[in-house]
């Protein structure tokens, strides 16, 4: 019998063998998973006496270095320097998340309540910066904030600009984060708001609620999945920001990514950079898990990717 044997289950859209995904998964294991594992391995190795890379000798110095400072007077002390950097990262990313939330919800709701033909255009307007280079957008913020830029010039003209200084302060970093991340907030909130049935709001009015109450009690809970996704999409990458503090903070407002980059560059301490990298990775994974499990327990449908 030279019959063609039937496969296990017949056709579905785009039917294909699961082997088709294999090259992709192998590739990603090689170029994503192994580098992450290498980072963990590196964080437990020693720094060579001169220069870059690692010495293949097991050591927990890198982790010790995060918390313990060898002082110049020969004593050791609990080191708050890197915890401060970590705190900065949380703090700046947190403020940026709150700001994007406060600005993003009204924008998303406003777009969602426009006539359909305008909506697509407005969404496109929000998406456009989303796809343009973060480098260029950060640079654009730098020019706006510069003392010799338009804001400084205006303040000088009206006579109050002499002590104007935002660029090279932490606020510049926060503004930069807010500016570059706001599309990440607007788009998911909009996706929820667009699906939200505004007749519920009408019902709220009908039952005698005022605008603010309707907003707080009916609309915001209704678009909660989008808000959660937005918070995650701003806060998680915000934690690992490198360009905004580098270009806007004047080399002073270090976030954890800057310290990692410095240890893989100028400072040439790969084990320590790797340990900080592992730290950042753990925080990221924790937040992703927190969002996904927290969301699942409430029964919301939130997609981060």
């Amino acid at each position: 019998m030279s019959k063609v044997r039937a496969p296990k289950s017949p056709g579905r859209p785009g039917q294909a063998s699961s082997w088709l995904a294999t090259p992709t998964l192998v590739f990603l294991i090689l170029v994503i998973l192994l580098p992450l594992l290498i980072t963990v391995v590196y964080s437990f190795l020693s720094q060579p006496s001169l220069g870059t890379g690692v010495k293949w000798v097991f050591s927990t110095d890198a982790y010790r270095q995060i918390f313990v400072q060898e002082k110049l007077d020969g004593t050791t002390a609990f080191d708050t320097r890197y915890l401060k950097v970590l705190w900065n990262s949380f703090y700046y990313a947190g403020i940026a998340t709150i700001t994007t939330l406060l600005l993003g919800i009204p924008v998303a709701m406003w777009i969602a309540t426009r006539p359909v033909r305008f909506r697509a255009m407005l969404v496109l307007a929000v998406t456009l910066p989303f796809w343009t280079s973060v480098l260029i957008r950060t640079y654009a913020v730098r020019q706006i904030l510069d003392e010799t830029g338009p804001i400084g010039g205006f303040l000088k003209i009206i006579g109050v600009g002499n002590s104007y200084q935002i660029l090279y302060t932490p606020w510049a970093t926060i503004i930069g984060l807010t500016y570059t991340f706001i599309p990440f907030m607007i788009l998911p909130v909009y996706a929820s708001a667009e699906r939200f049935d505004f007749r519920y709001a009408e019902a709220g009015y009908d039952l005698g609620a005022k605008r603010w109450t309707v907003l707080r009690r009916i609309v915001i809970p209704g678009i909660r999945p989008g808000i959660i996704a937005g918070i995650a999409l701003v806060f998680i990458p915000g934690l690992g920001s490198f360009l905004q503090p580098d270009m806007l903070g004047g080399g002073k407002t270090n976030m954890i990514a800057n310290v990692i980059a410095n240890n893989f560059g100028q400072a040439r301490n790969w084990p320590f950079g790797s340990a900080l990298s592992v730290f950042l990775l753990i925080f990221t994974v924790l937040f992703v898990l927190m969002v996904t499990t927290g969301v699942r327990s409430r029964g919301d449908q939130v997609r981060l990717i």
Partner: protein
Amino acid sequence: MTDAHLDIRQVTKTFPTPEGGVVVALDSVDLAIAEGEFFVMLGPSGCGKTSLLRCIAGLEYPDSGEILLDGSRIDDIPAYARPVNTVFQSYALFPHMSVAQNVAFGLEMERLPKNEIKSRVAAALEQVKLTGLDRRKPTQLSGGQQQRVALARALAKQPKVLLLDEPLSALDLKLRRGMQVELKRLQRETGITFVFVTHDQEEAMTMGDRIAVFNEGKIVQVGSPQEIYRRPVNGFVADFIGETNLIKVTVGSGGFIFPGGGVLARELLAEDCEVPAAGECLLAVRPEDFELVDTDAAVVGEVVDVIFTGGLIRLHVRAGDQEIVAALPSHGVVVPAVGDQTRLRPITKAARTVGS
């Protein structure tokens, strides 16, 4: 039945449900379809008729049982290797191909010479009266035209069996009538065995040489339209095929005691139905099989509604705790008014017992 063209033996098919349970779509179904037959599979949605069709097409595989075509098994051959083709409910035209490309697709899969493909495509399009539209995209066609392309695409393959999965359900009534006639014509001309799935009993009656009535994964009855209509094996078939009053009666010594007290003599029953010795049973009577009588040996009840529908007048009569519908000619009878007492009796040999 070994000489059957398409022979389905003990086919069972189950589907897992999302909750982890199992739905039995086909439960040990046996069926034999003869060559050149226009065979209709009829049943409500979820009855298994489409599952059986998909098993024949190879789009699903039975859990157990065999499907034979001309005596050899086809149930373990993948769909693309079976000499069977399908006209899908949604037409399933390839949106990125023109009409001609759609029709040629199956022939190209057989690696036929280009010339032959061309002539067979032209012939198929002519068969379904679509000549001249071969360069259009499916989106540029009307629903009826799309239907014809789907038909031409399947027919061009010259299958041994053509499966049609509720092909007319998306068309409006007038178009559907036209297509029904046309499908019958095509089937006669080509001589191909058609297996036609529908949930529309009227369509089934119009088209089928034979009809299989499905319910809950089983075939309840197979037969010609007349057999099915006139001799339903049970209440389900009687109710599903056409409109039927299922009247609960008590078997008494003189006959069947209707609600309301009237008695129907056994002799007035259709000849070939079983009559229980005693107890209750269901009597199936089509609305048009009632007549108004003066005798008390009838359903006696109060008219609760009178509806004029053109050629017929429908009387709703409450008898005891049952409501019975009768369809009477709108001329030649004195139509009672709402509130009147009336007497209805099945015409001779029209009522059947259909179990209890």
